[in-house]
């Protein structure tokens, strides 16, 4: 077990936490943050697993850079959509009826 692998397992945990948040949280900004956490987890798995021998591997590093840019593009677009949606409907969730907070 190398320290890279430790980060890969941290990525696994992040994926789990992020997925749970993504499914259960209803506030859209929180969902978005859960998505970003999950994304970071995937990136950690990608680099940590590929570098398990300890040597840096430029290919997954480049892929993660690309992935980060795609993630910020999606996040920024989502923020624009969510803010405009809130402006028009006054809602911060996708629920049909804005009553009865469960969980």
């Amino acid at each position, binding site marked *: 077990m190398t320290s890279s692998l430790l980060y890969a397992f941290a990525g696994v945990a992040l994926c789990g936490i992020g997925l749970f948040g993504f499914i259960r949280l209803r506030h859209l900004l929180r969902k978005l943050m859960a998505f970003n956490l999950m994304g970071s987890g995937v990136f950690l*798995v990608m680099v940590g*697993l*590929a570098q398990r021998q300890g040597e840096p591997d430029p290919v997954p590093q480049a892929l993660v850079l*690309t992935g980060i840019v795609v993630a910020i593009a*999606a996040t920024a677009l989502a923020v624009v959509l*969510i803010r405009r949606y809130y402006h028009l409907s006054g809602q911060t969730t*996708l629920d049909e009826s804005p009553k009865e907070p469960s969980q």
Partner: protein
Amino acid sequence: MTLWLMAGLLFTPLAWAVLTLLMDFRKGRVVTWLGMLVQLLVSLGLWAVVAGDGGFHYALGGWQAPLGIELRVDGLAVTFVLLTALVAAACGWHASIYLDPAKSWHRYFWPLYWFLWAGLNAVWLGGDLFNLYVGLELISLSAVGLVALGGQAAALRAAIRYLLAALLGSLAYLLGVALIYGQSGSLSLAGIARLTEQSGGDPGLAFALMLMMFGLALKTALFPLHRWLPPAHGIAKSPVSALLSALVVKASFYIAARLWLELGDELGSYALAQGMGLLGGTAVIWGSWRAFLQPKLKQVVAYSSVAQIGYLFLLFPLTWGASEAVSMQAQQGITLQVISHALAKAAMFLAAGNLIMSVGSNRVEALAGVSRFLPFSLFSFGLAGVSLMGLPPSGGFAAKWLLLQASLGSGQWWWLVVLLLGGLLSAGYVFRIYRASFVEDSDIDHFYHPPRSLEVIPMILALLSLGLGLAAESVLSIMALPFEEGGGV
């Protein structure tokens, strides 16, 4: 020659996206017409090249896989490139008349439309797992932008929901890619397929394949992950709905199918294959039933997409562990189903747009009496419906015939139930629209007449979908072409 065609195919949509971004809607429309022509000619040229000489690998930047990205230009890919060119051109043509140039935000329709087209081509030709991810994101984000265009609350809601589902799907796919790269050290699909063939199955890779299948099924809106689709496809402008239903959902399915056919034998399992098929079969019945109940016209068509997508997932059980001949039949049937559904569903959404434009309401009851005023669009809708029901001589019939044979050939008779019931149910929701439009006691006597060209486009698509059954042999022949092996160590 091939070099020019490939460069043209990859370059045109991206370049047109930039060009139309700098223009307003009217100028963008004229430029787009030119671009469609170029794209149609290039796609046709590439199709002819592959039909003549067989498929090949195309190394981008001159770097061979696994270092660089290789495109896989084979018969299936160019068939879908050509299908995309046809359907996207039809939808773009329709949009250029349908959309109101006076609304300032419609200028952004064209760049998003071209980016969408670029993403689709990238996916059909993609041979690199990560490149396919970027292509998927290109498609998803431009599709979300198209749904949100106009920015009304309901559209935004549907767009946000769509975006979240698409992002989760892509992330699951990317996680699978991360595992596969960790295991094999390569991103080239051809290379990975060769490696797994040598080393046999591997539980880590099998989990990766499952993750990718989940992500792609979510993006394809497979039951029960379909709930984002009807709002998004229902609320978008009709040409956009047509693009989304006809092409966008097929892109993620196409990747899933490619992965399955390359890696499924080693990494798949009977349970996974049957499970996917079962969900697909449920989607056919559930989607058709929901379509029958929808009060809004476009929701009917959107739920019909959920049902028709279900058929595609029969690919998994029908090819797993099946003999070469049966597997080929299933693949051909699914290919025909993709093509005929793309043509028919685009025709249906465009015709639905015309009908809604004509009566000024999107409710099914509001169609009362429309049969007297807009028989042409209604007729296109019906012809497309014939293909969805799977009646001869439509492409839908040819597809279901092949699937039926494959089911019997592999001894999985239970899929026959799905095929038969699905056809009957789809007849139900198509006739419901017809009945509503033939009601005579309508109190509205004023209908808006859309321009004639708007009515011609869905008719052409519907006729193509209908005629596909007759030309099925020649369309499918290109799939069996020899493919240059090698590439992607």
